[in-house]
């Protein structure tokens, strides 16, 4: 993500809530402030329909990180 932003491409990352702390500490050690959206854990054992609903539910949040507020 940091690499794409360094190449001039605004980027938003999507991760599960499991990753919140890991993301924070990685960001701190790299000195960056990445745009991140968190969806509820778990993801591995969800059905296709559940995953599609998660995508629908979080679309606006994700897009908001890609435009000026």
């Amino acid at each position, binding site marked *: *993500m*940091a*690499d*794409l*932003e360094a*190449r*001039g*491409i*605004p*980027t*938003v*990352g*999507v*991760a*599960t809530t*499991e*990753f919140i702390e890991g*993301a924070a500490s990685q960001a701190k050690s790299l*000195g*960056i*402030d*990445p*745009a991140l959206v968190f*969806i509820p*854990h*778990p*993801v*591995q054992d*969800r059905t*296709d329909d559940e*995953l*599609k609903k*998660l*995508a*629908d539910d979080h*679309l606006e949040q*994700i*897009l908001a*990180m*890609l*435009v*000026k*507020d």
Partner: protein
Amino acid sequence: MTVLLDPTSERSPTIRPRLPRPQSLDGLTIGILDIAKSRGDVFLHRLGERLGERGIAVKYYAKPTNTRPAPLPLRQQIATEVDLVIEGLSD
């Protein structure tokens, strides 16, 4: 940990800031990058579908393996083909 003195006028925050975002998505292309963790593809493709419904151009990319960073040629390709990126799904 290395501590450096700030050589600047100190008018901006110390953390590397995010890139400025565009005013709107009109006319822009969004790249969707699958980092190859399982089930992420379903989620990401649904995002892509919904963006397509809104008339926003979408391109899909996938990392060859989840265990290593995206290869350089892929990153270079993405950077030249799209304006914005959604990357996922980390857990």
